[in-house]
């Protein structure tokens, strides 16, 4: 047995990346996830509209953060702000009790807002001041069902797992089999190989996506109120990023083990940091910036917005643009990296002579 133990240690010590992962990853994960794991929303973007907008806004304290006061606005103004994701709570003044519209796709913010309104009512009673009577009204997800909020984002997580894991093996498998050198000598351009690797998986992932969205709707009654086309474009961009990331991982890995490790390192943080479970706004600042560079963060925005709120594409430019930039960056890097590996001599000291006649 001693021989086996020593051999395993030697092999482990040789693979620095695995070793680093075994020692470094638990520490990083604990710290990052520890700071991310926060259900307490400290800021709730709030709009106040109607004739008493200014007075009511003055009475709203933390966690409410009044982002807009619009005395000329009405219920429709609030609804549109909530739909576009510019605010989570909107108070419509000018009637009693005042309706406080809430974005039901923001589970923890809604809970925090309800709690805050209840505490305000009690505090004002204690002070002997007449409390502003507020009736919470939750839009898009009136029963605040967790499944409605989770399933749109979960579709993204599932695609992330399948997409990144499968494509991360694509090129490294050719490298280990040695066929990659043949591909390099065949009349392919680097992007022929990269996109040739991605397209079959993209097609399968699209079918997967349709199946899981339909299943989510059938099993959990999740609504799909928005535009299928908007959702489709968002999903396509997201898939290009995840599949491209898989291929990029594949081009920088020497063997399938390394590829899987890197894919796990890319996928796992997104479970907790993408806003799927913990709200991104509630995360510590440093960790929030990690959330902003993860593609799932943007797909969660798009899928929740479109499926539950019918958010129009005009309100989703930010996540669309970020995903597009990510897709271009990831695929571009994969092609460059692949070119560097495969065709090192195209620019140096080599001449290709299409007309060179064979001299046997």
């Amino acid at each position, binding site marked *: 047995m001693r021989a086996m133990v020593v051999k395993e240690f030697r092999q482990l010590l040789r693979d620095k990346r695995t070793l680093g992962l075994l020692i470094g990853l638990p520490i990083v994960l604990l710290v990052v996830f520890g700071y991310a794991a926060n259900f307490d929303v400290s800021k709730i973007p709030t709009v106040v509209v109607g004739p008493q907008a200014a007075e009511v806004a003055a009475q709203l304290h933390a966690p409410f953060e009044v982002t807009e006061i619009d005395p000329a606005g009405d219920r429709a103004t609030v609804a549109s702000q909530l739909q576009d994701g510019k605010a989570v709570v909107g108070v419509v003044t000018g009637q009693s009790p005042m309706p406080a519209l809430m974005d039901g796709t923001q589970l923890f913010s809604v809970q925090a807002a309800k709690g805050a309104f209840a505490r305000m009512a009690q505090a004002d009673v204690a002070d002997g001041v007449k409390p502003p009577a507020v009736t919470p009204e939750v839009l898009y997800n009136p029963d605040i069902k967790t499944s409605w909020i989770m399933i749109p984002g979960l579709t993204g997580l599932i695609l992330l797992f399948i997409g990144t894991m499968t494509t991360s093996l694509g090129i490294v498998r050719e490298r280990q089999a040695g066929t990659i050198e043949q591909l390099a000598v065949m009349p392919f351009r680097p992007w022929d190989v990269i996109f040739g690797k991605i397209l079959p998986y993209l097609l399968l992932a699209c079918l997967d996506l349709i199946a899981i969205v339909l299943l989510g709707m059938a099993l959990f009654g999740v609504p799909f109120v928005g535009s299928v086309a908007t959702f489709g474009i968002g999903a396509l961009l997201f898939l290009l990023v995840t599949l491209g990331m898989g291929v990029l991982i594949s081009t920088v890995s020497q063997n399938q083990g390394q590829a899987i490790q890197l894919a796990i390192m890319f996928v796992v943080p997104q479970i907790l940091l993408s806003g799927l479970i913990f709200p991104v706004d509630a995360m510590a600042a440093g960790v929030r910036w990690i959330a902003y560079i993860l593609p799932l963060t943007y797909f969660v925005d798009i899928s929740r917005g479109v499926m539950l709120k019918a958010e129009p594409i005009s309100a989703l430019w930010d996540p669309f643009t970020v995903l597009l930039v990510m897709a271009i960056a990831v695929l571009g890097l994969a092609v460059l990296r692949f070119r560097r590996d495969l065709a090192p001599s195209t620019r140096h000291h080599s001449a*290709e002579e299409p007309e060179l006649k064979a001299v046997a």
Partner: protein
Amino acid sequence: MVGGDGAGKSTLLRALVGLVRLSAGTARRPGKRSIGYIPATAGLYVDLTVEKNLAFIGRAYGVTGAEYVTRSEGLLERIGLTQARSRLGGQLSGGMQRKLAVAMALFHDPELLVLDEPTTGVDPVSRAELWRLIARAAARDTAVVVATTYVDEANRGSTVLLMDQGRAIATGSPSDIIAAVPGAVGVVRDAVRPRGPSWRSGSSWRVWAPSDSLPEGAESVTPTFDDAVMIAALADGEKA
């Protein structure tokens, strides 16, 4: 191209087809569409059938339709895999795999065929069949560059490059290389190893005398190609 393991044959072939960046010198080759290359380790997809492997090559080089059928049937026939067309690449024997790989490299009728140890680990019958394929391509005006560790195979080349430790130690036709052998070669039919540079050949010893004076008991012979290869390596070792 002949040399022992680690002599630099694969690297030189990879440089020739453009997989290695050259730090000096030039490599002249036809365009990618006119090169057929098999690395030492691979040559085909083990998780695709014989037919699907050929279909991939056909599509990659734009050989389709009737032309594809004619070429693939012809090649399958020639390598004796017509019956095995639906078998997975990984289920073929080592020899069959190499034959399929060579057939794939020849599929698009390349101007330059580069084969890295195509016959290593292949049984003698399959080796002969492989060489028939390669010779046929050469006869049809394809330039063939083959790396091998087998000296008898190197003898088939019109030009032979002997390599050792990353350097060319001799080059020329087999007869040139034999003619260039310095000193004298003898044979000693004795169980005891003679003095000086010598090596086993069957039940006797071959002995090389760089200064022409063979040891006592040695019978002078005309060097063979095998002798020439051995002596080139010894002579290079003495220089170094």
